[in-house]
């Protein structure tokens, strides 16, 4: 059970935080490659939200059901949430404001939902409440780094 890395992407697709927790899990890339990766993922995420195979069916039922059936709000579009590969697993959590948290773990990791939620809580507590932090800008907060590091270390040593 290992958490490899965390990436935070702002709502415009820019990389604002990037940290590796475990050596040897993922290849280390140059900063430029990480920026490209964040941008690519942002685009892919937008496409996967559009690719819903049930969208056409749901539209059809909602128009043909007429006035009899109560109006049901369609599910909000959802982009990529979990990506599985042979060597790792990536969980993506999108906040209401469009910030994406990508957590890279090994394939057997459990409770990633909880972990990523906790990371988001830390982001709100130690980054957004930092009076010197500017929104959409790279995250440079010592408090966040420290708390995140200790939390992930605890998970990796479990």
């Amino acid at each position: 059970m290992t958490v490899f890395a965390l990436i935070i992407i702002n709502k415009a697709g820019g990389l604002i935080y990037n940290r590796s927790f475990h050596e040897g899990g993922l290849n280390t890339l140059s900063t430029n490659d990480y920026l490209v990766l964040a941008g690519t993922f942002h685009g892919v995420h937008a496409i996967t939200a559009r690719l819903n195979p049930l969208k056409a069916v749901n539209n059809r039922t909602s128009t043909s059901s007429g006035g009899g059936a109560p109006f049901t709000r369609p599910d909000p579009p959802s982009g990529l949430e979990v990506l599985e590969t042979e060597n790792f697993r990536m969980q993506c959590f999108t906040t209401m404001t469009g910030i994406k948290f990508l957590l890279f773990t090994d394939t057997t990791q459990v409770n990633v939902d909880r972990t990523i939620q906790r990371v988001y809580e830390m982001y709100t507590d130690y980054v957004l409440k930092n009076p010197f932090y500017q929104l959409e800008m790279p995250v440079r907060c010592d408090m966040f780094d420290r708390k995140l590091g200790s939390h992930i270390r605890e998970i990796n040593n479990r």
Partner: protein
Amino acid sequence: MTVYSFYIFDRHTECIYTKTWLPQTSSTSDGPSSGGGGGGGQQQQHGPPGTSTSTSTTTGSGSGSGNTTMQLRASSADDAKLIFGTVFSLRNMVRKLGGDDDAFVAFRTAHYKLHYYETASSLRLVMLTDTGTPSMRNVLHQVYINLWVEYVVKNPLSPVEHKRGVGVKNELFEMALDQFIRGLM
């Protein structure tokens, strides 16, 4: 477990085969009889009284069905392109992060799950299913070895390059694939 659609892309990134098992593809072929429910042909067969209660709505959906078929056809061609773009980007991303031997297996959103399998000859098989489905990698591998190789590669009339799907849409392959996938559902 439900399979929504299946795509094959060749090494020139062209979509050479696409097939969907969505409820509306069956309802467009047999017209107004299955217009009301929209929940698939099978449900309609189980409940004939249900179709009689929704007679007023069938006329409404029947008039719009021609329009929706056009939209569906256009959107399925676009979907194939979007799917290829997604799969290609994710594959490159995964190989960059996990090393050259790493392979992208599947991704899931809240509405569907996409399974991916790539052969050594860069033939890419993609399947969209519901979110609860476990890994379909072996299924796609079976499709490749038991259906693709048997009915397309070993077909003496089939060309080497399947431009615009020539040679893929033969009766044996289509029938065997449909049977195989329906057997899983």
